[in-house]
């Protein structure tokens, strides 16, 4: 089938590529835009590992075709770090709360949680559990992830929870 040219802004960088219409947005981001934070753990919409923000809306990139995102502005987990490379609030919360082990699900969670907290800045425990139910993790049992969402919400509100960190040793 004939290829088409697509343009999009990925984490603020203009990207252009020629794609077959069937190429998913996820594959385009991974292969043509060096956004390998976009992970494919199911390719049928259930696991959330491929979640990215498309024009402000958290979406499964495995369920969109790259052609559909022509002209769009995309943010992936790479784009959620601070410009100086330091961790964004949600990313740091995952680290502080041991919200990851193998890390494969993590970029999708970071994107989903960022979007979730934008709509609900002060979620209850139950709201958090429902809010992140669209992302699967096989390693953590979600314990650290739930804490990370609480921690990120508190940090954004300026009242960080007392997560003890002792990288400095005692």
């Amino acid at each position, binding site marked *: 089938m004939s290829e088409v040219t697509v343009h999009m802004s990925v984490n603020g960088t203009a990207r252009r590529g020629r794609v*077959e219409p069937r190429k998913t947005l996820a594959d385009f981001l991974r292969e043509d835009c060096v956004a390998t934070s976009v992970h494919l753990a199911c390719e049928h919409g259930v696991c959330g590992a491929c979640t990215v923000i498309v024009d402000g809306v958290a979406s499964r990139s495995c369920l969109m075709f790259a052609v559909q995102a022509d002209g769009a502005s995309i943010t992936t987990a790479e784009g959620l770090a601070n410009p100086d490379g330091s961790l964004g609030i949600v990313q740091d919360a995952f680290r502080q709360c041991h919200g990851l082990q193998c890390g494969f699900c993590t970029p999708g969670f970071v994107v989903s949680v960022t979007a979730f907290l934008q709509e609900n800045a002060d979620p209850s425990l139950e709201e958090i559990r429902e809010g992140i139910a669209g992302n699967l993790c096989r390693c953590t049992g979600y314990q650290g992830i739930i804490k990370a969402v609480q921690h990120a919400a508190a940090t954004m509100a300026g009242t960080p929870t007392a997560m003890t960190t002792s990288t400095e040793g005692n």
Partner: protein
Amino acid sequence: MAQAHVPMADKHRDRAPLFEGTAARFVGQKVLRKEDPRLVTGHGQYVDDIVLPGMVHAAFLRSNVAKGRITKLDTSPALALDGVIAVYTHADLRYVPGTIVATMMQAMGGAACPENLLATDDVRFVGDCIAVVVAESRYIAEDALELIDLVVVAETPVVNLEEALTDTHIVHKELGTNITGTIDIPRDPHIEGLLTESAHVVTATFNQARQTNSPMETRGIVASWDRFRGELQLHMSNQNPHEMRRRAADLLAVDESKVHVAQQDVGGGFGQKMFMPREEAVIVLLSREVGRPLKWIEDRRENLMASNHARRDRATVTFALDADKKIVAGYVDINEDAGAYPFGGAGAGAMAGMLLQGPYKLQRTAFKSYAVFTNTCGRAAYRGPWQFESVIREQMVEHVARRIGIDPVELRRRNVIQWEDLPWTTPMQVMVYDNMSPAETLDQAVEMIGYEAFRAEQKRAFEEEGRLLGIGFSLYIEPSAQNMGALATEGATVQISGTGKVDVFMGTGSHGQSIETTMAQIVAEELGVHVDDVEVHQGDSNTPFGGGTGGSRTASIVSGAGRAAAIQVRQKVFQIAAHLLEANPDDLEIDSSVISVKGTPAGKTVTLAQVSHTALYATEGLPPGMETGLEATARHRQEAVTWSNACHVCTVEINRNTGAVSFARYIVSEDCGLMINPMVVEGQVAGGVVQGIAGVLYEDFRYDADGNPLTTTFMDYLLPTAAEVPIIEHGHIETPSNTPGGYKGMGEGGAIGAPPCVFNAVADALWLLGVEVFDHPLGPNEILDALATAG
């Protein structure tokens, strides 16, 4: 959140001294993970992120019938498609039998099933590999699969354990029977007498449901064969780089030194990626034929239906108790479903039989175990491969308690091994328990959950409101960090650069275990440097040989090697520093990379960087005759397994209208010896617990009567989400082991303890209505069926 912590160090005997001459800054602390910055920002590097010049993509043609004869296989239409490079079938593989059998298994007596990497003239399960397309992209490769002209004449498959046992239809015609790996430890007359004449004799049959590991990252491999150098470079999602190197070398009949295996990040495995599976072996073989880097990334449907399955077990168990309700004998008959092509770790029944006694003072046990082949996906290790022992025993303990009318906690207390009983030799004389605390974890769990109060509330809620609350326990011990074969050894190289920074090389294959952090903690501690100054390099075959990451072996075995190498390096650091400071090496100490004479706070110091600079750049400053450099390789040999243990307890409620189970609380009181990093310990426990819960309440890989898999997407194979899981509370008891550092294994325990715990809680709730259950899973459908049998 409740947390309890009981150090048992004072009870311990014969423990090696910990951390001479360093400040114990990092070990035992919540040190944040060194892996995280790259992973949370999406800059990890998993196998699918590897892109090599000229790389091509493979896809497997798989059987869609469970058993059948291939009468036509014409690949030419696929080959004609633009972008297709080659299509391979069995005849194209230059495979030497025996070369994918896991090294560990070869040592134990070889393969149990035929090794058809690709189907020869028949297919044996839905998902069986028939042909491989190699194309310019995975898209094109999948297009080509549809063009292959394949005709399979279906035959009657063997779909379940019961059918397999009759041998009416045979899975592997070469073998003539479906039954394999029988181990029979018969009942001697004494046991026979106890099992027939004791005051209480109870028998029950339990089934466990079929599950699959489902790491979030599926399997994947990039193999590049360099025909001019005769070398293979493998990037591979795996847990065991040295095993993969060995298998790949054998497959290609080249020297091991001609194979390099590397991976940076691995997205989970849980046993699936410990040994060389069929598909990866095919890719290794074909990389030589293709002559371009060859990538295969498994998709989720393939992973669910054709990577590996586990847990489909059945057991009939008999316990005999005396008039005091002491368990005096046990016998179990265990069958496991091995599927068609099991690999690596199948054959867990014997271990389950040997561990039947668990943490109880059971003097006499015997068992029979065997596996059967079926026309289903092959079995392999899944976190706690023989956890069925705990399922059988702990479900049986509560079943017996119901039958003979005793509280299940009381029954456990009467039988559990106490500290004073250790060391304890098991009835079959093959294992010696020591340095464990089952009685203490039981007490801690009972206290944390508030057992008496729960029982009162359970009674009230049932009598006044008809609600079904339940509580379940499971108490287990786990021989972790095995002392057999390649699993008993591990090496580490510790090397200090001229700037005083530390590189550590280890043979592990971390896939989420935080090894880069915990092993850096150990080495930092021993060297007296900051953990940030230590980099652990692993996941690569250019490291000292090791048995891979699995079997809960890293904390005690790998750390043993890392610690030993670090101590050697530290000794040399002190010798050089002593020379520079004109002091006696025995008087020195090191803290935060500064070496000083003990007890002289204002005295002269020298930094590690100065010492290493001397060792590598200003070598004239070394003591006369001393070898240059600051590095050491050391190995650890595991003399005995470590005995980890834990008690799980949870409380649940059954919705009588929908059959749904919801958790009130979930507590794990665990003893993994001294904790290197409590944050990591709790993370490992929690992950395992949720996998265990899932096995009872959610996950159930199903086949229909024709052997067609019914749960091949994440829509139907139900991994729990954050909305379904309990908040897990932890209790810690630390009984140091005899290994250096006092650690015990703990990576698998959560997944071992949880299934019987959850099952027991549901069973306890159902018992309010006089209903008993015996089988996993306990989804809403099964629970509604059970409720329907209530009077």
